[in-house]
């Protein structure tokens, strides 16, 4: 507390003034952050006519579910949403299984000088701009007749997510004391047994946070899905939304409704992983 007082005297502001300034800044930041999302929500309940009124309608006195019905009943947005969910869940299962094992190995075992190289190689695959890997992936998928399938998306997204899972889980495992495995082994467990019976349960919060990040990454991905999918059987939600925008016409009603629907699960997830967020965003590098 003493530190705060001196510091604020230095900058010529009393502590209570400083607190007011911070509070005003925070209120402004929250309003600025939320306004665009709320504006989309507001728009999604407008009639086709109200949507194009000028000046725009801020308080909608005439809300309608027309856009939601249009998108999810008349148009195949429910199918897109289902595709997105299936792809996200399969991707998460696949990348979490492989990545957790590798993360554990890199946190616990000694590979000599190779260790640093393996870790960095895994990370560097993530640095690759997606557009760069997409051309060869497209050719590869067309060779295996996987174009326009959810399988192609699951395979590719698992590759995109793996480096993230490995680094995240590595950082969670590194925090679990080694003694725990050693005592499990003294009790007669094998290394693998100790991993499954002792370590994984302890890493459960990390596993949960990592899987939510994987779900979000797959749910949000656009570029690969744009190139690989082209019919309703594999189109994901972002593709469906972007498909209603052309150079000549923008279907604002459907886009607002489906766009807001695409945001809802993400906002819920954001509240769930809040505590793990900083670590997730920095690949486990910053503990937060």
């Amino acid at each position, binding site marked *: 507390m003493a*530190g705060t007082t001196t*510091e604020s005297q230095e900058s010529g502001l009393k502590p209570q003034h400083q607190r007011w300034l911070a509070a005003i800044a925070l209120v402004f*930041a*929250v309003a600025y*952050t*939320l306004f*665009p*999302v709320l*504006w*989309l929500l507001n728009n999604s309940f407008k009639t086709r006519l109200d*949507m*194009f009124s*000028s*000046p*725009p309608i801020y308080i909608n006195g005439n809300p309608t579910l027309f856009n939601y019905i249009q998108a999810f009943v008349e148009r195949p947005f429910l199918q897109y949403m289902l595709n997105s969910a299936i792809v996200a869940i399969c991707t998460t299962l696949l990348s979490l*299984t*492989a990545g957790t*094992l*590798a993360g*554990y*190995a890199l946190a616990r075992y000694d*590979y000599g000088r190779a260790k*640093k190289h393996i*870790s960095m190689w*895994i990370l*560097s*695959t993530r*640095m*690759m*701009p997606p*557009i*760069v*890997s997409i*051309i*060869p992936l*497209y*050719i590869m998928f067309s060779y295996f007749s996987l174009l326009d399938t959810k399988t192609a998306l699951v395979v590719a997204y698992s*590759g995109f997510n*793996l*480096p993230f899972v490995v680094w995240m889980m590595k950082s969670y495992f590194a925090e679990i004391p080694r003694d725990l495995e050693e005592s499990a082994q003294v009790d007669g467990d094998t290394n693998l047994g100790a991993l499954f019976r002792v370590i994984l349960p302890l890493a459960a919060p990390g596993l949960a946070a990592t899987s939510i990040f994987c779900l*979000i990454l797959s*749910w*949000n991905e*656009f*570029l690969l899905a744009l190139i690989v999918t082209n019919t309703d059987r594999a189109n994901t939600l*972002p593709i469906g*939304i*972007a498909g209603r*925008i052309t150079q000549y016409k*923008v279907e604002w009603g459907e886009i*607002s409704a489906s766009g807001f629907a695409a*945001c809802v699960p*993400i*906002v819920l997830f*954001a509240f769930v992983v*809040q505590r793990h967020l*900083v670590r997730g965003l920095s*690949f486990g590098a*910053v503990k*937060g």
Partner: protein
Amino acid sequence: MATSSVRDAASTALRLEVWVERNLRYLLLAPTVIILLGLTVFPTVYMYIVAFQKFDPSNPAASQWIGFDNFARLLSDDKFHNALYRTFEFTFFAVSIEFALGLGFALLVDKHIRNLNFIKTVLLIPMMLPPICVAIVWKLMYAPQFGVINDIFKRVGLHPLQWASGYDTAMLSVIIADVWEWTPFVFLMCLAGLASMPTEPFEAADLDGASSWQKFRDLTWPFLRPIVSITLLLRIMDAFRLFDQVYVLTLGGPAAATETLSYYIYKVAFRFFDIGYAAAISIFMLIVTLMFSTWLLKRMQIAD
């Protein structure tokens, strides 16, 4: 007979278990390494091959070898130069503004937000939303006729703008949307750094009568630098590959004013079907990215 086969099975199982235990460190890594080899190393190698061909998408085996022709085109292709310039322009301005705002804001509210997890969560919403949704939200607000931004402009007496559909304002529009999306990321990372800072050196500095600026320069900044570097690396790499927002907000236009490298490669490969040339541009982009990230990682030494 029966007992010996049971014993055989038991000893096979035991031998398998011993083998698994002995090679566990490699077996645990194997799935990840195999998947990454298949999905990143193989494609990269294949792309180098394609870059030396006049690639025929309908019959890859019949593609002609044309040596360095695709790479030579990079030198004379004005559209490629434009895309490169636009990408740097976007990356530089977007990331600079995000850092100025994010770091400044973190320093301002640091001591007052530590327990306000709800507010932190609200602030992280933009960066977690699907980029496509971020783009449609802003496209909706930018609309010149019925958009809310021009309405606010008119109400406060400013001249309405064309925003995403105007040549001079398109890049600005993409940058503003990106700043909205990613400033909270910089803010939260800096906040995490500030929260983990020890208090003793600051108390000592206060006793010595150090000024705010001196404390920032000699204590806060050196402590924050590793986190700022990681954040900078992640932001620059992400900004450098911008695609989704451009696709929705401007389609690269007007007149290629927002045509980023990713978008240009997409156009060359999947609109003009000039896959060999697209591969050559991709290799250029990959090399730039790798050179930059290795340089920054070496400087920061976060690898352990």
